């Protein structure tokens, strides 16, 4: 937990898996909330997801994955509790009675089956905030449908708009929707806490992946109502050119170059030493460049093809032309700009000595009053004792009994397969 603790005293119980919800609660953990992630020995896929050092899971693989430190149990506590058992349910309700927020990403109906739905929880905690993050929400004809980030990418309209020029639709990403939804989860929870500070009231939040996705394509939603259709243009632009990706020297190296107006076109021409083709009148105006963008891209690509992507980026930017090299993860991890800005989070997970110190992406905002670094990554069940004692009020003997009957655990079952 962060040392400053803007959300110090806020307690979050989270039944979360995979990406979206853990990404969202990670922000609250960074801000100092006590985020208790409840985990199940029956569902260890997040702990199997890696990445592992050199791609190889070790003897304690369940504590080693990089995704755990990046968002899974980042700055959180882990309580490995079987909430499907009657003892586990009882413990969960005791925890919920002493928590501010309960979140889950089960399909609608599951929380009710457990007796953990909002109506049940306000019985034990009238000021509770609950959030369920689902594919399509708790109401509507699609409420029972499951999702992957990719299927929501499709259902929200983003995939339809994405694709190479003249080509078929493509999903924008296998996980952009997860992270985008996670950010929206954090915003919704912070709004609910803000509201509770003002009114004293808790709240029920029904947040969906599909709708978060639709909220990100507002312009196309408006256009669709007035028969304006957006064509797929790859890296191209609706009215600007050059605005594309161009090949550079060496295999699979590329640069993007963007010209938004005539002045920038002049600067690009100068940077190219004013080749004859660039003086052609069809390229003289924004509209002309756009209408002849394929020829323009062809010419420009021939100019970039022999050059080093990063050197060309430096040269163009220094001459006032908008450009960026197409960075690989390796480029980024070694990037001087990001490094000098203190963007990266270097973290050595004491729960995974085999992993050693590794570099992670940081948060994209910097504020001396809001440190958001990775300071811990909870091991499986690491906080069973402290949470059950301090939050649920259980005695040492009661905790021991739960351990003996397998309701709580700190290691996978012996028969569990290594990933």
């Amino acid at each position, binding site marked *: 937990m962060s040392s400053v603790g*803007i959300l110090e005293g806020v307690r979050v119980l989270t039944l979360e898996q995979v990406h979206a919800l853990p990404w969202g609660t990670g922000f609250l953990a960074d801000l100092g909330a006590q985020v208790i992630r409840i985990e199940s020995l029956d569902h260890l896929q997040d702990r199997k997801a890696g*990445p*592992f050092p050199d791609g190889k899971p070790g003897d304690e693989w369940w504590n080693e994955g*990089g995704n755990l430190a990046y968002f899974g149990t980042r700055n959180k506590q882990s309580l490995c509790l079987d909430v499907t058992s009657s003892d586990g349910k009882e413990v969960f309700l005791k925890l919920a009675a002493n928590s501010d927020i309960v979140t889950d990403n089960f399909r609608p109906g599951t929380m009710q089956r457990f007796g953990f739905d909002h109506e049940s929880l306000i019985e034990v905690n009238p000021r509770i905030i609950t959030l369920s993050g689902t594919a*399509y929400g708790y109401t509507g*004809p*699609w409420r029972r449908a499951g999702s992957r980030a990719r*299927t929501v990418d499709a259902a*929200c*309209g*983003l*995939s339809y*708009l994405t694709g*190479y020029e003249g080509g078929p639709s*493509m*999903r*924008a*990403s296998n996980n*952009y929707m997860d*992270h*985008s939804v996670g950010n929206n989860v954090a*915003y*919704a929870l912070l709004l609910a806490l803000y509201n509770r500070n*003002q009114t004293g009231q808790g709240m*029920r939040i*029904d*947040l969906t992946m599909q709708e978060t996705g639709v909220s*990100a*394509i507002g*312009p*196309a*939603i*408006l256009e*669709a109502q007035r028969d*304006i259709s957006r064509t797929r243009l790859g*890296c191209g632009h*609706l*009215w600007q050119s050059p*605005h594309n*990706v161009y090949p550079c020297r060496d295999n699979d190296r*590329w640069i*993007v170059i963007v010209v938004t107006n005539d002045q920038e076109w002049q600067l690009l021409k100068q940077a190219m030493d004013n080749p004859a083709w660039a003086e052609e009148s069809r390229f003289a105006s924004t509209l002309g460049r756009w209408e002849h963008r394929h020829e323009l891209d062809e010419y420009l690509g021939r100019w970039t093809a022999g050059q080093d992507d990063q050197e060309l980026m430096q040269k163009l930017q220094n001459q006032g032309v908008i450009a*960026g090299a197409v*960075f*690989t*993860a*390796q*480029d*980024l991890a070694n990037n001087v*700009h990001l490094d000098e*800005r203190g963007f990266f989070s270097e973290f050595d997970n004491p729960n995974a000595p085999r992993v050693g110190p*590794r*570099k992670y*992406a940081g*948060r*994209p*905002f*910097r*504020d001396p*009053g809001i440190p958001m670094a990775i300071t811990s990554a909870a091991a499986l069940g690491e906080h069973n004792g402290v949470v059950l004692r301090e939050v649920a009020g259980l005695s040492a003997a009661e905790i021991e009994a739960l351990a003996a009957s397998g309701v709580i655990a700190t290691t996978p079952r012996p028969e569990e397969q290594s990933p």
Partner: protein
Amino acid sequence: MPGILSNVRVLEVSNGPSGSFCAKLLADQGADALKVEPPGWGDQARHEPPFIGGDPHPDRGTTFLAFNTNKRGITLDVEQAAGRDCLLRLAETADVIIECYPPGRLNDLGIGYEKFQEVNSKVILLSITYFGQDGPYADWEGDDLVAQAMGGFLYAVTGSADRPPMGTALQQMEITAARNGVIAIMAALFRRDQTGEGTHIDLSTIEAAVSTPSGLIHPYTFTGRSPHRGGSDRNVMDGMHLPTKDGEVTLTTAGTGGRPMEVWAEFLEEPGLLDAKFASRQSRLENWEDLHNLVAPKLSQWNNLDLMRETMGRGLVVGLVQSPVQVVESPHLAERGFFVELEHSEVGTLKYPSAGFLMDGSNPMQTARAAPRLGEHNAEILGGELGLSTEELGVLRAARVI
């Protein structure tokens, strides 16, 4: 119902899509957001096609309309001293100021963070730029495509392995920066309530691209390999888009209890899927054309909504590749009350997407107003709230300050 942020005043002097969207997210939850635009021309997005009705018009651009709901709009020329004076007076009562100028630009004009703090010690300033306020690239310029390129998204995420890098549509990196921005602002509001202190937040769109959608850094530092695009190439069961009678669908192997081909063979009534050459993920990739030739004709007999209903009933997970028209007309979203209708004098009534969450069963998005026309609220805010007289407003107008 007043929004949760109805006691928060936001001053947006951004002139950039990330700042506009960030202020919109706050305005849609009730914040009193004042959008400050340069007189005459306004926000650049006012001039970006497409336009409702077809012809260019500064109040009819779809991006501008979508990114500026629930704001009031004024014009101020901050290049002129009189404009800066008005801005500083507005800053006195602002909780949050959002700006997207190049680093140092506001400082050079004499309206940097220190100046804002002088008039309002508790103000929270969010600066959004592509590269951040410092570092070797701080003075460079960017756009959404540059953020996708330098954020690692372009190389690794969207396109095909054997084709050039390709990215996502509709400025998603700007949106991502904005989504991080509201988290930072909410954190700063909590902190201000505790300490009485304002702050200056430095947000980089490139860094939002690196950290948020793709998770590139630690996969590389753990394995030494850079993720590469092409994850959905040749992947019939878990990635490709396949035609239906009235659109497209993407399948998954989720919800099949580890027996994807048996379950899908039964659902599609295509026993050919049980062939051993489709038994493993790897063998399906190797034989993807054969698999495609079996699956595609079966799917093309389905209507999208029927396919969704039937697969859902069996616990299978698919994604309809919906067009924006299909999204707007979605019975599901209609039943949830997701879209809100806003009336605008230039474009009429349109449905707008809301935030993506219901609170206590209701859509919390405010419906105060559609995007402001250029300078629409000059008299109301500069006259009514700052108390400038009609004569003073006339002087400002004549000098093109407003």
